[in-house]
């Protein structure tokens, strides 16, 4: 890396390469602005690229995401740093920010890697695959996942034994253990934060037994099982590989709940649970799927019809939140709940329980700015300071927010919000000129 490249200028810095950040970057680049896109993970595409199908149209998520992702990565005006983090952003003047960015070593020269996976075959180390939620293993030299972008190998240095097998196997000699972190000082006119959300950690609700009971999983874990690039090649319960036939969804896990500090509704869990239920009915025609809910929130375009469709397919909807989950010897689970319709407490046995975990804020949000403070809402989402007239505006002039960094949102709303953020960023740059 040469000195001058470490100091570069762009029109916009987009933090987060998920679907919102990508859309915002693309919008700006398509209108002639240069964009630097920073992604913490090894691949862009965010959470969406890992999903199975998306409601309410049931089109395949990867099919929507991958063309978009390749459009982003090929765009001449977009520069992407994956495996990189923004350490801080300093306002230099009214129209100029300076961002300190660190790119962590991948130990692979991205430009030379052809994605042939020979290093992966050669690597002897197997560790749990974070992209499959530990359902299978992966190598320490690996391509993150088959539709990753860039589709380039990386070395998991924490788990590497430095045996050199990958390096010997690599035909392009692109593996480079001498790589070190690179720091960039980048000057930009505007910043779009699209850092997305985290999923609620169900370990915080011990009475649901997540972590203790192997057959209690999160919906994101089920999402992987249903995706085309799934870990088991079919749906199996992780406790013992049984094909499940009585599945239960526990809605509002970590949402609408003051006891864990998140009183707001996550907005997406009802719909993704209904979607998964429909997909499960397709994948396991003999299975019963029950959704335990407080209120079904199918509010968006085509959502109510989608909910009706699930009812028509035989998905069982029970009004009542799950109170307790306990495990039987055979790995089945007993769910205790009040059937509000029947006005009585009941117990039901299921062989796989899926916790519909909610949306919580990404703690990175607050950490970027040194000489400006970014206002957050009580739930640590980024505060929209002029929510009605300028929904992407934040407490710092020239800094905009896109997607779920400002609160729970589904994919269409995230994309619209990214459109709003890029629009406001562009008009900001133009009007400041």
């Amino acid at each position, binding site marked *: 890396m040469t000195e001058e490249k470490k100091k570069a200028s762009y029109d916009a810095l987009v933090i987060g390469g998920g679907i919102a950040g990508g859309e915002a970057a693309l919008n700006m680049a398509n209108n002639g602005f240069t964009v630097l896109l920073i992604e913490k993970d090894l691949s862009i595409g965010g959470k969406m690229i890992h999903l199975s199908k998306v409601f309410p149209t049931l*089109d395949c998520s990867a099919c929507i995401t991958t063309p978009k992702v390749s459009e982003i990565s090929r765009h001449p005006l977009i520069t992407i740093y994956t495996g990189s983090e923004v350490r801080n952003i300093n306002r230099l003047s009214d129209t100029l920010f300076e961002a300190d960015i660190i790119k962590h070593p991948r130990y692979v020269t991205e430009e030379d890697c052809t994605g042939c996976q020979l290093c992966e075959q050669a690597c002897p180390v197997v560790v749990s695959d974070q992209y499959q939620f530990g359902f299978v293993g992966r190598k320490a030299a690996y391509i993150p996942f088959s539709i990753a972008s860039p589709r380039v190998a990386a070395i998991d240095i924490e788990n590497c034994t430095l045996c050199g097998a990958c390096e010997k196997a690599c035909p392009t000699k692109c593996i480079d253990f001498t790589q070190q972190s690179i720091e960039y000082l980048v000057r930009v006119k505007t910043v779009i934060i699209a850092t997305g959300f985290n999923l609620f950690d169900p370990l915080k609700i011990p009475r649901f037994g997540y972590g203790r009971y192997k057959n209690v999983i999160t919906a994101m874990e089920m999402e992987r099982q249903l995706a085309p690039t799934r870990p088991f090649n079919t749906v199996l319960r992780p406790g013992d590989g049984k094909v499940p036939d009585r599945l239960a969804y526990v809605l509002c896990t970590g949402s609408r709940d003051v006891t864990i500090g998140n009183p707001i509704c996550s907005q997406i869990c009802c719909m993704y649970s209904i979607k998964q239920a429909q997909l499960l009915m397709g994948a396991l025609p003999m299975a019963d799927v029950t959704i335990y809910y407080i209120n079904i929130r199918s509010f968006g375009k085509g959502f109510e019809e989608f909910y009706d469709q699930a009812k028509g397919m035989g998905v069982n909807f029970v009004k009542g939140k799950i109170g307790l989950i306990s495990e039987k010897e055979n790995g089945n689970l007993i769910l205790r709940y009040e059937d509000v319709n029947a006005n009585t407490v009941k117990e039901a046995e299921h062989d796989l329980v899926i916790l519909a975990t909610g949306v919580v804020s990404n703690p990175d949000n607050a950490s970027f700015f040194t000489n400006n403070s970014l206002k957050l809402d009580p739930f640590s989402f980024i505060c929209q300071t002029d929510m009605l007239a300028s929904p992407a505006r934040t407490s710092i002039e020239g800094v905009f927010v896109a997607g779920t960094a400002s609160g729970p949102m589904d994919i269409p709303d995230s994309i619209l919000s990214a459109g709003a953020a890029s629009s406001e960023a562009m008009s900001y740059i133009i009007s400041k000129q």
Partner: protein
Amino acid sequence: MSLPEKRNARILVFSTEKISDPAIDMAGLLKLHYPPTVYTIAVPCSSGIKPRWIIRAYEKGFDGVFIAADGSDCTYGETCTEKTGQIVSRTHQIMKEKKIDPARLRMAAICSVCSEAFVKQIKSFNQYLLQSLSTSS
């Protein structure tokens, strides 16, 4: 029992550049094998395939033609599936007239990550073609 002359049927696949061709690519990526006598031509949209191209393939010696259609993911509009279906039925008509077994043309919607579905379809199509070839010869 004599060994059949060819072990696999020759199949021409019409794929679409944005949807089904990536799925066929991914089949390779996942090392899902299918007969190497399967050749792919990618076009923008499956509803733009002319019946004469398909007939040409039979005339030139292909045993089967498979249309890997866009299905509902088509970026050119919802009518794609319906129109591709019409092409298939029209071609079937011509095939009947030309005394070509209509079952030698198949179509299935292949989404951009439906690699397994593609391989499954091709394998079963290959089986069918081999069978019908051996019975007809």
